[in-house]
């Protein structure tokens, strides 16, 4: 097909065009059809394609050389372009533009021969398009930037940082625990009443304030009142009654033990039980604060009457308690369940008789807490808290000396003495005194379990209390139901002072501020205060504190405030303020230690007494 069309232009140019047209159409068609087969042809041949209007030249003509000169001028561009020149105001040729013309007359542009032409393009119609989004949510925020708000923010930031540090240190085990904790918290924080738990601190303070308002006069008296009449009374003093503490739940029980807390000076513990052998019921342990006389701070109940208690000096939340059934227990005030934290049992060596006194001791060598207890079964037992269990060690078994009975088989029976009171020496750690039901006082040592260091024939009936003097290391005091209070020097077998109080003495206590002052309470409802420095033979205060029917059972001095608390057998506790005469401090020379003053005085008194005795013996 192709060679045929190539030849066509030599002969018939008209036809040529048509044929070309056809040819092209055909070619198109062909090319169209050829496309499908074209790939084969492409691959097969690379023959040059001749365009149809190519000149056919002979070889000789092909070899002919033609010279061509190339210049910068465009040979195809026309030579005489005419352009409209604004300057001239008419169409001029470019040649004329290039050559500078001579200036013609300037044309004036005024309204007669100046015409302005303006044209305006078509203004597209304007259309408004609007779109409105939803407004972002807004809240009003207002706050004050006080100094304390800034401080709080910093403190919070600090806490957050510390928390993240802790979290980094402890990884998964802590995370699990905290997960459990969170679950527990969620379940309990559901009812409205639980929200009020957050108010516990506020309600506590509020109750105290309400009480303070009600008992305002008593609070003022406690703090500020000093009986001015004491100046006119020679040496006698008075006791001013302050608050009364009583609780419905402890109504029919007697106060069996009183103890001030060594750290929190307004908190005291009261043990309730019964001294009556026939009527034994439950017991209670209540802790009152002077700041709230209407309701105790802590309340614990027990099956058996509480007979004695002691609060640990270093751990003021641990209370050791002895029961009527012979058990001892430790209550932890930090965990206010009504059950004791640790309790002895029949297996773990409880006493077989009521425990009359317990006393905390210093921690033993393994840093375990330990305390001693004395009971009517004749055993003095040391209890140690080892790994959450109470372990007991019998320290001494009290024997009644000199009365070994012989049983027909030749064995010797040692009747067991019954301990009713004991007290440990303030400085000599191993030495302590035990009072017994027979009226004897034994001086014992923790290290000797079989023998007593000394024996004193103290009283005719059971010894209710023995107490070392807080200042003088040699002097101690004892009281008993045989109506007497006796003061001893532990090196001398006979008492230094004997006082007959006309009624069974329930308890005696030394004053913490003076070595010569002590208080005694009797079953006829009277409280007696003695000051040996002022009056050796008589009480300087002799005052009925409770109704005659009520027998006073215990008395304790507060360590810093000039008050005493007295318990009776009806479950009432009365607090009394000591008038100034009762708390006279000896006027020592300035600069000298006042503490040793009273002891020096007592030594003087002892010497005086001894002189008196020697004189008596001689005569």
């Amino acid at each position, binding site marked *: 097909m192709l060679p045929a069309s190539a030849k066509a232009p030599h002969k018939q140019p008209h036809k040529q065009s048509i044929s070309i047209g056809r040819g092209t159409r055909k070619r198109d068609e062909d090319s169209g059809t050829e496309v499908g087969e074209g790939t084969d042809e492409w691959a097969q041949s690379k023959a040059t394609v001749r365009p149809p209007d190519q000149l056919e030249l002979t070889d000789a003509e092909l070899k002919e050389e033609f010279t061509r000169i190339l210049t910068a001028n465009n040979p195809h561009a026309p030579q005489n372009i005419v352009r409209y020149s604004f300057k001239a105001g008419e169409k001029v040729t470019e040649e004329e533009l290039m050559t500078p013309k001579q200036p013609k007359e300037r044309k004036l542009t005024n309204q007669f021969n100046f015409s302005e032409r303006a044209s305006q393009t078509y203004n597209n119609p304007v259309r408004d398009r609007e779109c409105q989004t939803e407004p972002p949510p807004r809240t009003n925020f207002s706050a*004050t930037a*006080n*100094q*304390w708000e*800034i*401080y*709080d923010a910093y403190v919070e930031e600090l806490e957050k940082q510390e928390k993240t540090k802790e979290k980094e240190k402890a990884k998964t085990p802590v995370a699990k625990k905290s997960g459990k904790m969170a679950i527990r918290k969620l379940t309990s924080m559901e009812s*409205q*009443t*639980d*929200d*009020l*738990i*957050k*108010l*516990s*601190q*506020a*309600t*506590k*303070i*509020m*109750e105290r*304030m*309400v*009480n303070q*308002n*009600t008992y*305002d006069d008593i609070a003022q008296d406690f703090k500020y009142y000093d009986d001015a009449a004491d100046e006119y009374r020679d040496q006698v003093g008075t006791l001013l009654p302050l608050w009364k503490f009583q609780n419905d739940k402890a109504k029919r029980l007697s106060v069996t033990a009183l103890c001030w807390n060594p750290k929190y000076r307004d908190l005291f513990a009261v043990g309730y039980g019964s001294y009556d052998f026939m009527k034994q019921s439950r017991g209670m342990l209540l802790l009152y604060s002077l700041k709230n006389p*209407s*309701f105790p701070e802590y309340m614990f109940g027990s099956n058996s009457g509480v007979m004695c208690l002691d609060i640990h000096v270093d751990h003021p939340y641990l209370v050791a308690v002895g029961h009527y059934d012979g058990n001892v227990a430790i209550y932890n005030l930090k965990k206010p369940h009504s059950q004791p934290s640790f309790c002895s049992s029949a297996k773990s060596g409880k006493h077989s008789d009521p425990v009359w006194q317990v006393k905390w001791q210093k921690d033993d060598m393994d840093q375990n807490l330990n305390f001693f207890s004395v009971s009517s079964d004749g055993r003095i037992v040391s209890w140690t808290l080892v790994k959450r269990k109470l372990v007991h060690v019998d320290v001494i078994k009290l024997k009644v000396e000199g009365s070994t009975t012989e049983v027909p088989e030749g064995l010797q029976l040692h009747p067991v003495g019954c301990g009713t009171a004991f007290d440990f020496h303030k400085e000599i750690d191993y030495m302590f005194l035990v009072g017994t039901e027979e009226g004897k006082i034994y001086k014992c040592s923790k290290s000797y379990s079989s023998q007593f260091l000394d024996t004193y024939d103290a009283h005719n009936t059971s010894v209710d209390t023995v107490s070392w003097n807080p200042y003088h290391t040699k002097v101690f005091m004892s009281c008993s139901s045989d109506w007497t209070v006796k003061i001893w020097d532990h090196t001398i077998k006979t008492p230094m002072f004997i006082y007959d109080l006309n009624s069974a003495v329930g308890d005696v206590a030394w004053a913490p501020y003076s070595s010569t002052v002590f208080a005694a309470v009797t079953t006829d409802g009277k409280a007696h205060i003695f000051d040996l420095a002022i009056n050796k033979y008589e009480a300087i205060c002799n005052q009925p504190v409770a109704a005659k029917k009520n027998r006073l059972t215990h008395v304790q001095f507060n360590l810093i405030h000039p008050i005493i608390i007295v318990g009776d057998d009806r479950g009432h506790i009365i607090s009394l303020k000591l008038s100034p005469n009762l708390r006279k401090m000896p006027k020592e020379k300035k600069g000298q230690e006042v503490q040793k003053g009273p002891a020096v005085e007592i030594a003087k008194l002892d010497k005086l007494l001894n002189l008196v005795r020697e004189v008596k013996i001689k005569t």
Partner: protein
Amino acid sequence: MTPVEETLKRIQSHKGVIGTMVVNAEGIPIRTTLDNSTTVQYAGLLHHLTMKAKSTVRDIDPQNDLTFLRIRSKKHEIMVAPDKEYLLIVIQNPCE
């Protein structure tokens, strides 16, 4: 009853106490023993006063904080114990 409920009950039955109420951090009373209008009045007014008192105490020393507020008037005494989230208000007439 929880110890807090018992204590609140004791306070209410104490001698001379006219009324007690618990108000939350926004000044809305939660619990009260007085009638509605009095409660709302007390709650609103005392809430502002407590905030002002607290602000005063803390401005002077940021480490300090308000523990108790007492307003003694001729007829009775209003006591406010602020807490983290709540306010406990007690109105007492000490000398009956």
